[in-house]
C-alpha cells in the first residue's frame, strides 16, 4: 500500500489533486461528524451557558440512545415506517418486475408512452404531485392509511425499480432462455428456474432501494399521514423538531434513521449507479 503511494510522483498536479481530495473528504465528513458528535453529547456539552460549544463532547455518552430506545414512541414510529416500506416493496415489485422483464425482452406497443410518462412523472415536483394525490386519496378513504402511503411511495419507487430491473434482465443473455426452451422448459418454468435465480441479487437490490426510498421519504408521508395517528420515523423527527427539544435527542433519532440507509447504500452502490446514471434521479 505504502509503496503504491510512493509511485505517485510529487509534482504540481498531484499535490493539488491530493489537497483537493483531502478538502472534499472533510467537506463530506463534517456534517456527519457533527451528527455523531451531537448524538453522543452530554448535558454540559449542549447547554454551555454562553460558552462555545465544544467540538468534541466533554464526556461522550450513549445515554441519549438508551433514552430514545426506552420509549415506545420510537418503536411505534419505526414499526409504522417498516410496515409502509414493506407494503411499498410489495406493490412496486409486483407491478414493476414483470413489466421490466417484458420491456427488456420484447418490443411492445406503448413502450414509448410508458418511458415518456416515466420521465414526466419525475418532472412533477413531489410537492406538486402530492396535492392531487392527497385530495384523491381523501375521497377514496386512503388518507391516513398504511396502504395509501404505500401506494404513494410506490409511485416514487416505480421508476427506479423499472430502471434497475430492466438493467438486470438485459444483462442475462437471452440464449440461456432459448437453451432452456430447446430442452423442453415452458415459459413459466424458464422464468422460475433460470431467470429468477440469476437475477435474485439484483432484484433484492431493487427491493432494498425501494425500502430506503420509503424509509426516509418525507413529503408524501407528511401530506398523507401528517395530521393523523400513523407517524413514520421522518414525521416523528419533524414532530420532535417543532417542540425544540435538546439537540442530542434530535441527532440521535437522526442517526438511527440514517444508519440503515448509509449501510445499505454503501453495499448497494453498484446497483444504484445504473438507475441514477440512467436519469431516474431523486
Amino acid at each position, binding site marked *: 500500500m505504502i509503496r503504491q503511494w510512493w509511485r505517485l510522483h510529487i509534482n504540481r498536479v498531484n499535490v493539488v489533486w491530493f489537497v483537493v481530495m483531502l478538502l472534499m473528504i472533510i467537506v463530506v465528513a463534517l*456534517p456527519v461528524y457533527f451528527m455523531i458528535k451531537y448524538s453522543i453529547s452530554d448535558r454540559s456539552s449542549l447547554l454551555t451557558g454562553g460558552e462555545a460549544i465544544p467540538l468534541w463532547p466533554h464526556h461522550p455518552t450513549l445515554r441519549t440512545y438508551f433514552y430514545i430506545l426506552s420509549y415506545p414512541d420510537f418503536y411505534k414510529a419505526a414499526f409504522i415506517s417498516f410496515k409502509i416500506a414493506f407494503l411499498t416493496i410489495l406493490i412496486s415489485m409486483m407491478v414493476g418486475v*414483470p413489466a421490466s422483464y417484458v420491456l427488456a425482452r420484447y418490443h411492445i406497443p406503448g413502450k414509448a408512452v410508458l418511458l415518456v*410518462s416515466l420521465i414526466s412523472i419525475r418532472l*412533477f*415536483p413531489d410537492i406538486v404531485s402530492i*396535492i392531487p394525490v392527497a385530495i384523491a386519496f381523501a375521497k377514496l378513504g386512503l388518507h391516513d392509511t398504511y396502504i395509501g402511503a404505500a401506494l404513494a411511495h410506490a409511485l416514487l419507487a416505480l421508476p427506479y425499480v423499472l430502471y434497475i430491473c430492466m438493467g438486470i434482465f438485459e444483462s442475462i443473455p437471452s440464449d440461456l432462455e432459448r437453451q432452456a426452451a430447446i430442452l423442453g422448459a415452458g415459459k413459466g418454468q424458464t422464468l422460475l428456474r433460470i431467470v429468477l435465480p440469476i437475477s435474485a441479487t439484483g432484484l433484492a437490490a431493487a427491493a432494498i432501494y425501494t425500502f430506503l426510498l420509503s424509509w426516509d421519504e418525507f413529503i408524501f408521508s407528511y401530506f398523507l399521514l401528517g395530521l393523523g395517528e400513523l407517524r413514520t420515523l421522518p414525521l416523528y423527527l419533524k414532530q420532535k423538531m417543532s417542540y425544540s427539544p435538546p439537540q442530542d435527542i434530535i441527532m440521535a433519532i437522526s442517526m438511527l*434513521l440514517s444508519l440503515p440507509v448509509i449501510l445499505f447504500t454503501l453495499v448497494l452502490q453498484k446497483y444504484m449507479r445504473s438507475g441514477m446514471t440512467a*436519469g431516474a434521479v431523486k
Partner: protein
Amino acid sequence: MFLPTFLYLVGFLILIFYYLVTLSLTNADAGLAGGFPSLANYRYIFISAEFRSAFLNTVLFVLIGTPLELIAGLVLALIIHKQFPLRGWVRSFFIIPLAIPAIVSAIILYILFAYPNGHVNNLLMGQYPFFPAILETPFNFRASAFYSLGISLIGKVWRDMPISMLILLAGLTSITQDQYAAAETMGASERQKFRYITLPLLLPSIASVLLIRSIEMWKEFIFPYFLARRYRLMGTLIEELYHDWHKTGEATAVSVVLVASIILSAILLFWFLKRFRQALIRI
C-alpha cells in the same frame, strides 16, 4: 405483464394532471355555482408579493445551484478519476451525502447555524482557538433571506454532489487513454488536454447533469422548508398555501406555474446545450 405498470404510472399522471388543472381553475370563493372555470387563482397569485418573491428566489436558487452542483460533481469525479490506492474506498465515502436522508441533512445544518449559540456562530466569533474572530455578536442566519436560502442551497448541493459525480465519472471513464497519449506526443499541456479532449467528450455527461440538476433545483422543498421558513421558494409556498391557509386553488395555481417553469427551462437549456456543443466542436 406490462399493463399494470402502464396503468399505474399513466393513471397517476392523469389524476395529477386532472386535479391540477381543475383545482387551479376553480374559484373557491364563488360558491358551488360558476366557480369553474375561472382565472381568479392565477390573478390572485400574480398580484401577490409572496408569489413574486418566491418565484424570484426559486429562479436564483436554480441559476446559482445548478452550476454549483456541476462544479462540485466535477471536482469529485476528477479526484476519483485517477489511479490511486484506496480509490474504491474514497469513492464509496463520497457517496455518503446521498445516503443521509435529506431531512436529516437539513436538521444538521439547522443545528450548526443555531442562534445565538451554535457551532458556526462560535466559530465566527473566534471562540475556537484555530479561527480568527470575524463577528462581534452572534448572527441570526435564519432571519436573513440571503443566508437562510444560501444555507439551504449549500445543503442541497452537498447532498446531491454524489449523483453529479457518478454521472460525470461514467462520462470520464468512457474517454480512452489513447486520446490523451496521442495529445501528449504532440506536446499538449494539461490545460489543452482538458479543453480539447476532456471537455468536448464529457459534454454529454455535463449536459445531463445540468438538465437533471436544474430540474431538481426547481423542485427543491425539504431544505428551504426546514432552513428558510420565512423566505419561500415556490415549493415551500405551495405547502404553506395548502396547509396553513387552506387555499388549495392558489396552491395548485402555483404548482402549475412551477411545472410550466420546469418544462420551459428544460427546453431552453436543452436548446442552449445543443448550440454550445456545435460551437465547441467546430473549432
